[in-house]
């Protein structure tokens, strides 16, 4: 796919050369032509990476469901289902082959984990190496709540100063001689 894209870029540059030999087309415009042509090629580039669909829609649905749960290791932040890289295409092919061979979902996931580790899973199992990942946010939440509570309690303690009798008298006067409960 990258080769194809580089091919597009080269073709666009050639086109610029042909339109204006010796490079009189300003660099910016030349760049825009390249960008537009490469963008124009997107559907073709995408189609090339597509996995070839197999007849059975049930199989395809299972392939997709499993592929959603697996991380594409060559592309950052994409699942195998979303990605059309050659890695993901191969993975989908393997998943499809295993489904056709009658393997269940658990066996297929195990196949992937044995080769690529827990990192390949979007929902890794909770174990000694991953508890921080799962428990970390909750730990932070609890710690922050404890911190907040301590802070609030301390503040309340500071404000609740006892009034002297004369201060209380003053307050009563300021409040318009209404009946005020003594603390």
């Amino acid at each position: 796919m990258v080769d194809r894209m580089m091919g597009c870029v080269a073709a666009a540059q050639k086109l610029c050369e042909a339109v204006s030999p010796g490079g009189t087309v300003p660099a910016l415009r030349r760049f825009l032509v390249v960008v537009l042509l490469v963008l124009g090629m997107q559907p073709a580039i995408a189609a090339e990476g597509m996995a070839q669909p197999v007849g059975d829609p049930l199989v395809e649905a299972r392939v997709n469901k499993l592929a959603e749960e697996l991380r594409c290791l060559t592309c950052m932040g994409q699942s195998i289902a979303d990605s059309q890289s050659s890695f993901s295409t191969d993975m989908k092919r393997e998943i499809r082959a295993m489904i056709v061979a009658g393997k269940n979902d658990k066996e297929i996931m195990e196949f992937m984990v044995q080769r690529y580790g827990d990192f390949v899973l979007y929902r890794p199992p909770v174990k000694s190496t991953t508890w921080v990942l799962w428990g970390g946010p909750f730990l932070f939440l609890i710690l922050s709540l404890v911190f907040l509570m301590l802070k609030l309690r301390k503040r309340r303690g500071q404000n609740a100063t006892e009034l002297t009798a004369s201060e209380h008298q003053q307050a009563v006067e300021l409040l318009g001689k209404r009946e005020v409960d003594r603390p």
Partner: protein
Amino acid sequence: MRRFLFPLVIFIVLVVFLAAGLRLNPREVPSPLIGKQVPTFRLAQLHAGDKFISAEDMRGKVWLLNVWASWCVSCRQEHPVLIDLQKQNKIAIIGLNYKDERAAAMTWLTQHGGDPYLVSAVDADGRVGIDFGVYGVPETFLIDKNGVIRYKHIGPVTAEALKTKILPLAEELARG
């Protein structure tokens, strides 16, 4: 003064975490295969299509399995390092020619300074690569006498990596 101490500590901890995160390479995923038996494979040889190579053939030796392809750009970077290593005659390198075409692979070797591999295995559809957990080329595995994977290097092998990690470990494995 003490009012600022606590936020400052949190800030420093955050900076340390982020700085450490920046240094990590997200493409280097630890392999679960370290310490496990090398996956079994039996593949045709690159230079002699009627002959085969399997992991069993290398039993009793410490060897490197280097995953390469003619379409792989960073393989060009590591190729001179591998040729240099082969000249030193310290360790056998087996190539895994991954998702490549035979003719293209052979031409690539002659064009890029020779063939550092004892044998290259042809993994045209990449199935053996998947068994090895390959997701990027080049990758290199160090395998001991009993066929256990001891180390995985992701990305081009450098002279530095050979000197500091791969060769010392290989020597240790050869002795033990």
